[in-house]
């Protein structure tokens, strides 16, 4: 074991005998491009709706519910898909979220929510996790499209104006505090304070 380690250590740190420095640098450069490009392509692919609904857990439960809502089906044809709300857009947080998603792969492998009954039993827990995430990041994924500064209060209903001009403007509340269940059905809400 020790010899094996020593052998590879020497191999890595000894100057190369047969390959020129140029090949090594160029080869490393090209390999870097391929790796980085492939990494980003794979990252983009896992952000597509097609990828998300390739699992029946997503396709039969949450995606069916999304289809009924205004975020998927509306007159102007603007559509928010899974990753628009569930994956941060900037790189650092995106990578963080992708690492968290490895837990979801675990769930998929072991069938944590692979029947409607199991999904129903977990619905509150899953919803709470998303509420917490959006509370913590000040509803960042909502605000990617819905900008507070661009809201025309004169075109909102009186009740909406009151809430938006006080609690939201004063940063006492964030979107998700009131707008729960806008893209999926709500779980059993007993005990949840919905403002």
């Amino acid at each position: 074991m020790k010899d094996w380690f020593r052998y590879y250590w020497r191999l890595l740190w000894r100057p190369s005998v047969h390959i020129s420095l140029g090949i090594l640098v160029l080869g490393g450069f090209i390999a870097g491009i391929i790796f980085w490009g492939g990494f980003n392509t794979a990252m983009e692919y896992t952000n597509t709706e097609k990828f998300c609904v390739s699992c029946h857990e997503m396709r039969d439960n949450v995606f069916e519910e999304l289809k009924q809502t205004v975020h998927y089906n509306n007159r102007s044809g603007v559509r928010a898909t899974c990753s628009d709300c569930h994956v941060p857009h900037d790189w650092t947080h995106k990578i963080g979220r992708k690492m968290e998603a490895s837990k979801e792969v675990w769930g998929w492998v072991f069938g944590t929510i692979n029947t409607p009954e199991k999904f129903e039993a977990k619905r509150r827990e899953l919803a709470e996790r998303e509420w917490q995430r959006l509370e913590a990041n000040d509803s960042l994924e909502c605000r990617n499209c819905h900008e507070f500064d661009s809201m025309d209060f004169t075109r909102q209903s009186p009740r909406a104006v009151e809430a938006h001009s006080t609690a939201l403007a004063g940063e006492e509340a964030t979107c998700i505090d009131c707008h729960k269940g806008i893209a999926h059905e709500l779980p059993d809400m007993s005990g949840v304070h919905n403002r």
Partner: protein
Amino acid sequence: MKSFIASIVILVTAVLGMAVASEISDPPRPEGVRGAAFSETPEAPPIAGVTERRGRMERNYPEQPPVIPHKVEGYQLDKRFNRCLDCHSRNASPESGAPMVSVTHFMDRDKQVLAAVSPDRYFCTQCHVPQTDAEPLVENQFRTVDEVLRDLADQRKQ
């Protein structure tokens, strides 16, 4: 041999019968309310628009469930959550400004008052409906209780 002839006769009758049946597949057209025969698929009428919010509407008779003066499309109304009660519940109504769900809805069928809305009154849209600008398919001959009383009074005078 006899059974062979019999089976031929049955076969021929069946084929002839099918030919006749296919000729009369389109039944005489009864003028339905949407004006199409049974075998036709009429074009769906456009989805009626929900009338704009204009406050509470008058009831046509005392027991009428009040109609809903706003859109309820996509409202979740199931065992898990009741979107209507999000505003119309006892606790929410002062803040939301929506009328509180009537006290009769807290009674079970034995008129026993419960702490929350009774399960048999939970599904709001069984009785309460929003109004649309759809053209009525048949003429509405409903007369309000006031009209009926006025007519009765007129009859007595004569």
